[in-house]
């Protein structure tokens, strides 16, 4: 099985190359047989990569430590779950995962278009397989083959980094990769439209859903990463502006911009060049993200070991793709002229344009910050860096502007808004925002930026709620329906718009949580059993934690654990207990893992960290006097709003993604030939 998987990788490359060539040539020459062969190649590559992945997973499950990759990321006692996820634990395997997911989406793209959008398919397949082939080339020739063998098999592997032995860390990379790889499809469609010259109103309609799908996975991937950081890293933070974190944010920002500017193209036939640029930029940023993680170019805790071969290969790939895209757009420029103009500054088109400019501004500043060491070193010879202070202070006004736009957008009409109506519609929301700000101020909240954020959040939420109410009433009066039915039909007949508003609600919640972080508290104390530590929350609650002592069980794959138990009282009433741990994993005894205890409520999290046990060895021997330990207790404000907000974003995205009848065909894609094969045609 393992050897089969290895061979599958070698077979996949020539087939990928064949398919890419066949797709391009078949499209150019009108040879339907080549095109069909290219489509089959897509499925074949997917099948082969499944074999490769199965081979790697089998190697892990059967403890085949003669494979360098398995020896590095597994050991005998590793739980099965992590042996399976060993596939993406390291650089090499994660490249296979990327290739696998890319081929999955390529197959989905081919399959869903086997009886429609046929004129786009040949070049689309060509582009998809070109990208796939690139990753296969990297896997096979850039010294990152996951099947590389050692001279002889070690008795046991090195084991998996304890920080990765965690549920969130396991699903975070695949979710992110789903988002990244899915962007290849809209890029392929866009290139296909450019190459074939079919730049009318259709390619946008087709592409839109794929972009939303990618955006959805990427948003979730980012949130899972934040969840992992919060629960596992043990510092109480969830975003560190680390270069690799930032790199995953960049395509998400440009994709968000695209989701908005695409509506302008659909409604008014404008911004065609802009949108082409955005699709290309978003895709290039996904490649950039994986390049950054692998090349070691920028110092980061996330990066794999530095590998200059890979760095150069990826740079060359990005450069070539960027160059070709620019040339194609320039070539087709006459066909991409706008059909209309913006009539009025006071219009939704205008607001969406601002949205785009601001999001791209954010993208640029973050990119600048990430590359700053390279830029400064290149120009002055001395590398300078910027960190969280830079990113926070630069993105704060941008975030506030976006928040404000989320309120303005729904209220302002297309083409030309009536000014007086606009002002009238803002009155209540602004009043609500002002009341919230005043109320909070009177309650002791004096943090300027947080107040502005809370006020704007209230403003936006009011507007969205009012939108739903007005929309329901409008529909009820036009269609003569009862209000509940009107509401249901309102949302289901215009999923994109109302799904989008729901997404905005989620985003507002996340922004609000960010503002809440300004009020976090923490206290550090060393305790013996029986002693207490207190902390007061910003909401006036007093938490008293009493240290009960340490127990020292042994979890799976661990040498030992130290579990500290605290009983908790809130405002004098016992509310339960919290544990915090240090875990010593096999093979990683030098780096004990800190596991925090969190008591989560909507408005505040009680966060307990076991910072240090004075005499860990003694504690493991269960010596009574070795229980002294240092703890850090935090109260983190409104963190749950991030997870709930993320859930609402997911809900809104699913609504937006849900297919409605009659969007691209008259009925649901009914295969005309009634078979699984693409629609066949008579040879002309």
């Amino acid at each position, binding site marked *: 099985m393992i050897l089969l998987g290895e061979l599958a990788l070698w077979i996949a490359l020539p087939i990928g190359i064949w398919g890419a060539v066949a797709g391009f040539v078949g499209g150019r020459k009108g040879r339907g047989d080549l095109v069909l062969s290219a489509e089959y190649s897509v499925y074949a590559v997917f099948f082969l990569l499944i074999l490769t992945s199965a081979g790697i997973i089998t190697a892990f499950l059967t403890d085949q430590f003669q494979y360098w990759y398995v020896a590095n990321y597994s050991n005998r006692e590793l739980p099965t779950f992590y042996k399976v996820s060993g596939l993406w634990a390291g650089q090499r395997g994660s490249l296979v995962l990327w290739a696998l997911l890319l081929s999955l989406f390529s197959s989905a793209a081919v399959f869903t278009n086997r009886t429609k959008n046929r004129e786009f398919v040949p070049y689309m397949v060509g582009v998809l397989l070109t990208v796939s082939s690139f990753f296969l080339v990297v896997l096979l020739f850039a010294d990152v083959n996951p099947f590389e063998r050692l001279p002889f098999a070690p008795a046991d592997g090195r084991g998996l980094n304890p920080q990765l032995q965690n549920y969130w860390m396991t699903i975070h990379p695949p979710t992110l990769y789903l988002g990244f790889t899915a962007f290849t499809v809209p890029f392929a469609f866009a290139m296909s439209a450019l190459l074939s010259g079919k730049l009318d109103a259709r390619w946008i309609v087709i592409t839109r859903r794929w972009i939303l799908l990618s955006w959805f996975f990427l948003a979730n991937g980012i949130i899972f990463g934040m969840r992992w950081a919060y629960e596992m890293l043990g510092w109480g933070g969830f975003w560190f502006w680390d270069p690799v974190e930032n790199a995953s944010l960049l395509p998400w920002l440009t994709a968000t911009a695209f989701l908005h500017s695409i509506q302008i193209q659909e409604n008014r036939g404008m911004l065609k060049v802009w949108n082409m640029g955005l699709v290309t930029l978003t895709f290039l940023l996904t490649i950039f993200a994986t390049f950054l993680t692998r090349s070691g170019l920028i110092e980061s*805790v996330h990066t794999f070991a530095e590998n200059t071969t890979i760095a150069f290969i990826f740079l060359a790939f990005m450069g070539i793709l960027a160059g070709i895209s620019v040339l194609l757009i320039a070539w087709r420029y006459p066909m991409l002229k706008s059909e209309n103009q*913006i009539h009025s500054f006071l219009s939704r088109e205008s607001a969406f344009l601002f949205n785009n400019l601001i999001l791209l501004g954010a993208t640029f500043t973050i990119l600048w910050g990430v590359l700053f060491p390279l830029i400064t070193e290149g120009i002055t010879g001395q590398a300078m860096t910027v960190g969280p202070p*830079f990113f926070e202070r630069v993105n704060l006004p941008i975030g506030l502007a976006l928040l404000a736009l989320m309120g303005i957008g729904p209220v302002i009409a297309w083409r030309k808004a009536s000014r007086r109506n606009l002002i009238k519609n803002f009155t209540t929301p602004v009043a609500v925002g002002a009341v919230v700000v005043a109320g909070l101020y009177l309650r002791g909240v004096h943090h300027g930026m947080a107040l502005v954020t809370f006020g704007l959040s209230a403003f936006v939420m009011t507007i969205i709620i009012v939108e739903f109410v007005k929309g329901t009433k409008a529909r009820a009066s036009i269609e003569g329906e009862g209000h509940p039915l009107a509401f249901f039909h309102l949302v289901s007949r215009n999923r994109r718009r109302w799904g989008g508003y729901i997404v905005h609600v989620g985003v507002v919640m996340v922004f609000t949580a960010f503002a809440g972080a300004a009020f976090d508290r923490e206290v550090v104390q060393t305790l013996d059993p029986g002693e207490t530590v207190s902390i007061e929350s910003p909401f006036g609650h007093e938490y008293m934690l009493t240290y009960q002592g340490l127990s020292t069980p042994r979890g799976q794959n661990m040498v030992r654990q130290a579990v500290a138990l605290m009983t908790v009282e809130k405002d004098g009433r016992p509310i339960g207990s919290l544990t915090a741990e240090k875990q010593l994993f096999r093979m990683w005894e030098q780096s004990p893992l800190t596991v925090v205890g969190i008591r989560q409520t909507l408005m505040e999290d009680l966060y307990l960290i076991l910072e240090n046990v*004075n005499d860990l060895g003694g504690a493991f021997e269960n010596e009574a006097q070795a229980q002294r330990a240092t703890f850090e207790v935090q109260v983190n404000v409104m963190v749950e709003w991030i997870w709930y907000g993320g859930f609402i974003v997911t809900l809104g995205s699913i609504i937006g993604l849900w297919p409605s009848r009659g969007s691209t065909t008259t009925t649901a894609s009914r295969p005309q030939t009634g078979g699984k094969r693409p629609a066949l045609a008579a040879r002309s």
Partner: protein
Amino acid sequence: MRDNGKFFVGLGGVALVVTYLIWTGVSDTMLYYLTPVELMARVAEDPTFYDVGVKVSGRVEVGSWTRAEDELLHQFTVVDLQDKSVRFPVEFRDMLPDTFNDTDIVDVVVEGRFREDGVFEATVVLAKCGSRYEATAEELLG
């Protein structure tokens, strides 16, 4: 044309604001990114370099980590990756990352300022096990 003009005005406006934000952000928060060797050189030639915000990358000296009893204070020594004779002590009053230890080969990046008494006062410590991800064949086979 006039309407396109509005678009470019908007674009220019946003570009100006972004440039301003980046400019002030960078000048207020940027840090020198140095190796220990470079840090020592700078300090030698410019005494005011103490108290300048810097970020230094190096390696933790094996066996150099001590922790104060009952106080959140860590001390360890950072050694230059190239020139092992160049080193300096670090003080850190926060939680160290789990990947930090002084037995394995651990590469660190410390952020803070180099004090006149020759101790680096760190505000941020990032640690990456040098051999964390990729053990060589020799290391694997023991």
